[in-house]
């Protein structure tokens, strides 16, 4: 992991989407007056005829994407997670997922790491909302390389996908890593604990692993980039091989990664799970780094969770 070189997943997404546009002319991009900040403006500059600014009207944007998909286009739809999964939930459910249409919802500014904008813009329920919709697949990527891979990967999937992206710049984790849709990435081999993390907090978990190593505690981190379908095998294997399971996410502890892991273990290998996330409350304004600390989903909190109860 390169702690000095940081990039937000929205940035990697925007850059890669503009590259993908040159390889696949079925791809069209829709945005809701946020292309400068979701980074779909790179695509818009290169392919103005395949980019549609739909204005501040996310419900219509989702429905329009559905219509485009019925005619063979592959729409990538982007706006903040709050508006994609929240405001336009009914349209995502009924116009996109029910007919299983080939729409890729790339939602940026997810989680409390949106920062200063505060609770109204900090979407902490999207993984929960999106993963309960039949036909929907859900991803949440953790770094530059993984996000670039995911952008290409979801274009190959026939059907709706929700890709959760963040505003907060985080370290580049991977070099030459092979990813597979629906398969978590195991980092480290420790058996003292497994930290299953997703998205923006994966690098926090890796830093916690490194710090714990200096204290003689060896853990492993699972980077769960695909939330649905969830990688059952790696969860069950980790529960069998390690002493405890901790989940970490920049999301409400209800309904997201932590819940998905609990569902797998409850049915297959009952194990106590400690869920770290936003503890069923709204976010607040602040700098992203400060908020990770405040809501106890940063490196320090992960180290504490493992050492206190060790």
């Amino acid at each position: 992991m390169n702690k000095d070189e940081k990039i937000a997943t929205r940035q990697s997404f925007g850059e890669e989407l503009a590259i993908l546009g040159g390889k696949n002319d079925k791809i069209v991009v829709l945005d809701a007056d946020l292309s400068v900040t979701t980074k779909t403006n790179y695509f818009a500059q290169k392919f103005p005829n395949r980019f549609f600014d739909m204005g501040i009207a996310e419900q219509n944007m989702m429905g329009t994407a559905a219509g485009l998909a019925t005619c063979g286009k592959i729409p990538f739809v982007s706006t903040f997670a709050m508006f994609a999964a929240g405001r336009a939930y009914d349209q995502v459910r009924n116009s996109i997922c029910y007919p299983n249409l080939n729409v890729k919802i790339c939602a940026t500014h997810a989680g409390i790491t949106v920062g200063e904008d505060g609770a109204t813009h900090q979407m902490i329920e999207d993984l929960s909302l999106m993963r309960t919709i039949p036909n929907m697949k859900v991803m949440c990527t953790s770094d530059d390389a993984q996000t670039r891979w995911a952008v290409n990967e979801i274009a190959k999937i026939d059907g709706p996908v929700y890709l959760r992206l963040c505003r907060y710049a985080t370290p580049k984790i991977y070099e030459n890593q092979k990813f597979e849709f629906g398969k978590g990435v195991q980092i480290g081999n420790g058996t003292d604990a497994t930290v299953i993390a997703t998205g923006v907090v994966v690098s926090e978990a890796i830093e916690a692993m490194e710090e714990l190593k200096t204290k003689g505690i060896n853990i492993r981190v699972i980077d769960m980039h695909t939330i649905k379908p969830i990688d059952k095998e790696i969860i069950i294997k980790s529960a069998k091989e390690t002493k405890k399971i901790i989940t970490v996410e920049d999301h409400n502890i209800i309904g997201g990664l932590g819940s998905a892991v609990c569902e797998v273990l409850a049915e297959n290998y009952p194990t106590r799970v400690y869920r770290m996330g936003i503890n069923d409350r709204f976010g607040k304004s602040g700098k992203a780094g400060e908020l990770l600390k405040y809501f106890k989903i940063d490196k320090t909190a992960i180290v504490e969770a493992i050492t206190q109860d060790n």
Partner: protein
Amino acid sequence: MENDLKEVAKQIRINTIKEVYYAKSGHPGGSLSIADILAVLYFKEMNVDPRNPKDENRDRFVLSKGHCCPALYAALALKGFFDISELRNFRNINSKLQGHPDMRNIPGIDMSTGSLGQGLSAANGMALAGKMDGKSYRVYAILGDGEIEEGQIWEAAMASSRYKLDNLCIFIDNNNLQIDGSIDKVINPYPIDKKFEEFGFYVMNIDGNNISEIEDALNKAKEVKEKPTAIIAKTIKGKGVSFMENVAGWHGKAPNEEEYKLALKELGGEADE
């Protein structure tokens, strides 16, 4: 031709009543009000082929007021997209004919709808795709006059004219009734024509239960350039069945046996065997 289309509309109405009667649920009122429009669209206007329902050059149709699918299913069956006997199974657990249109399983359905307010957006997407690909197909949609109370309709209407979708033609089924009563008493979306005009549509007001007026409006719509067309179709909810006409209570209610027989008699139909 006009007499043939009148006969088609009559058959759509008869089959609508049968579907709802057999299902013991469904939405007869708003289905009967759009029967004439569907007859003209499917039997004169639209380029569709039941043998090739997914033809990429076909004209598209979106029933934004998806609950009125009994009339649409009847039109599709009469056109030959599936066997007319399937209508008997409307809303049945073993049938593909879902309570609201399901594009994945019903031949001839171009968009799944049901949650009101969403169809115009999908129609916009289809029209946009047609423009991008240089295709000459047209996209039609029917919206309810109550349905346009949904905010998404106006988001979509802005986009229809922003993107100059002159390959799009929508009908507003102005039967003046929604579940809770007259649309002007409930929340009042009038004036509908002026609203669509201000949103950049070419607007026509017609009698939506008059075949030749529907035909004329559709012909005019094809001449319109750089603008989408909205046809405000004044209709009668429950049209053709005296005791259902202009009665809000027949929005989503099935007739009992006596009412069923009376309705068929008025429409000039006969009960199956």
